[in-house]
């Protein structure tokens, strides 16, 4: 392990890098169902970061909201409307 860095720093680096990757995939994705799944992955990365930042109550609330309720809500909207983003 690199001296001066604890396990918290390494976990935070992994979590924020995952969040960057998932946000970019959400941004460039044309299929909205896949975009919702990538957004849920970003929520998992933020939940890991909340646990490392010593906020376990926030991690409980945020993982339930970000992975469960947001995904269900957006999938409900997709089932009522259209799935693919139009390319001009």
């Amino acid at each position, binding site marked *: 392990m690199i001296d001066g860095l604890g396990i918290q720093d390494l976990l935070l680096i992994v979590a*924020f890098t995952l969040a960057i990757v998932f946000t970019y995939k959400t*941004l460039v994705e044309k299929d909205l169902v896949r975009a919702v799944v990538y957004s849920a992955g970003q929520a998992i990365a933020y939940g890991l970061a909340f646990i490392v*930042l010593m*906020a376990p*109550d926030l991690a409980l*609330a945020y993982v339930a909201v970000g992975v469960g309720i947001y995904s269900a809500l957006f999938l409900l909207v997709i089932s009522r409307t*259209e799935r693919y*983003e*139009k390319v001009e």
Partner: protein
Amino acid sequence: MIKDIVWIYYYASLILITFMSIYGIAVRPNLLKKIIMLSILSDTANMLAVLLGYHILSPKPPVYPGGTFSTTQFPSQEQLSTFAKYAVDPIPQVLVVTAIVIGLAVLVFLSFVAVLIYRRYGTLDMRVVSKKARHEVK
């Protein structure tokens, strides 16, 4: 030295995610994509608030050290000073719990509006929707 680089990386990654989500809200034409990027933007603001309250030296969760249910058992002086020295800041966490729930309510409302717009105009592409709406007004 390496601690400073790591902390610069944390803030830079959060600011990068913020700019990516603002780009998605402003440029992407699909309304549901805008709503998804808005959820990411609010979560990033919450994460930035929690990261500002973090304690570098051996952090602990902000749990009150005394007996909470009995009023006669107060924490001692050493317990209180240890708590103030090592616990992370509880104020951003309390605010962020409220912000998560309010953001959920706002997103439910926006999704409802998106379904209504689709029923009225037959599409979620905001360029087409604004063209049709402008045509209706004339």
